[in-house]
């Protein structure tokens, strides 16, 4: 049986959260200082929780013996449908905070709409994630402001991060067939419609941070179709190692 549109939709949201969580977890034990190490690890944990909620729901929609673990650990790179920005390497501390700012700002707007979903389970997940995301947004936006409005060195590092990551932000607002169908059924969110507000929040943060908004350049995409950057495979090989080496290991 072909996968339902709702399944594909929920899975893509779960993949975004899971890949972001795994990426952020790579800061654990090597953040610039202890409190920050704990903060990034906690945000990662929230995202793993969010991923678990989405993927458990996706597994239920898929039916059969599918579990959330199955979806996380037994799919290949091409079967992952996360947006490319989620898999982007952590880089330096400025790179990570810029990536988080782009995503947290997007989720702030996206989840606000998803709580109105006609699908009760999606609405409940969104309500839960929305509260947590407000902490994440505070964290990433305050760091971008601190670093931007900091020293010459920190300012130039955030500006470089912004310029490098900007090309991945177009994909946040792309509507594929699944998005269009879910949005027309009032289950999903019209991502495209969130762009002006997103740009306005980002502009406010960057202005306060004395940073320049990058000019719209070529925007890359493909994540939703399973066309990823070379970085995802490495991330998955690390995350899936145990289940691949010892299938069905449990403890």
């Amino acid at each position, binding site marked *: 049986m072909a996968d339902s549109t709702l399944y594909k939709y929920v899975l893509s949201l779960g993949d975004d959260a899971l890949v972001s969580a795994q990426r952020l977890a790579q800061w654990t034990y090597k953040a610039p200082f202890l409190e920050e190490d704990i903060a990034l690890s906690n945000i990662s*944990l*929230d995202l793993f*929780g969010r991923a678990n909620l989405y993927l458990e729901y996706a597994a239920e929609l898929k039916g059969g013996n599918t579990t959330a673990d199955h979806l996380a650990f037994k799919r290949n790179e091409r079967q992952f449908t996360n947006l490319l920005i989620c898999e982007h390497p952590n880089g330096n501390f400025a790179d990570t905070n810029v990536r988080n700012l782009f995503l947290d700002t997007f989720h702030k707007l996206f989840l606000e709409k998803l709580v109105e979903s006609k699908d009760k389970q999606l609405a409940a997940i969104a309500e*839960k994630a929305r509260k947590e995301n407000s902490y994440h947004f505070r964290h990433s936006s305050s760091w971008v402001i601190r670093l931007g409005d900091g020293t010459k060195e920190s300012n130039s590092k955030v500006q470089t991060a912004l310029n490098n990551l900007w090309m991945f932000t177009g994909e946040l607002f792309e509507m594929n067939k699944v998005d269009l169908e879910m949005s027309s059924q009032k289950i999903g969110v019209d991502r495209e419609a969130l762009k002006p507000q997103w740009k306005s929040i980002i502009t406010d943060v960057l202005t306060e941070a004395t940073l320049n908004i990058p000019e719209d350049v070529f925007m890359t995409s493909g994540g939703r179709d399973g066309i990823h950057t070379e970085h995802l495979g490495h991330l998955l090989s690390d995350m899936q190692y145990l289940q691949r080496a010892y299938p069905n290991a449990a403890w």
Partner: protein
Amino acid sequence: MVKEISVDTIWELLHKIPDPEIPSISIVELGVVRNVKFNEDNFHITVTPTYSGCPAMSFMKDEIVRAMEAEGISNYQLHTSLAPPWTTDWMSTEVKEKLKEAGIAPPSEKVQCPQCDSPKVESISEFGSTACKALYKCNTCAEIFHYFKKF
């Protein structure tokens, strides 16, 4: 003897399960247990997660299972609900007092030092040892303390 067990008995048992991170309060006081109902020969216990990534959640569920089994109760089902989402507003004044006694500043609009009640505190980190806590410092008595975030 199943018939001697009531919904109240279940609540009492749940009241005895401590929060794994803050043992001075129970999982009922924390607001994790939302409902206990008896329906078609089964007790239905509904719990809700605090933070969606809270690793203590599965531990709390295991503790509920252990508590039921220790009393020989087998006719129960454990459910998880997400809506309405958990909030610290569900904590009673009494519970907030217990947190304070344990050296943790309770959730509130205004953070105060749990040792000397001073409002002159500063945030060290929004994220403490667990997702639900932030790290603060008291500028009056120099105590470093956890604040249970208003959520």
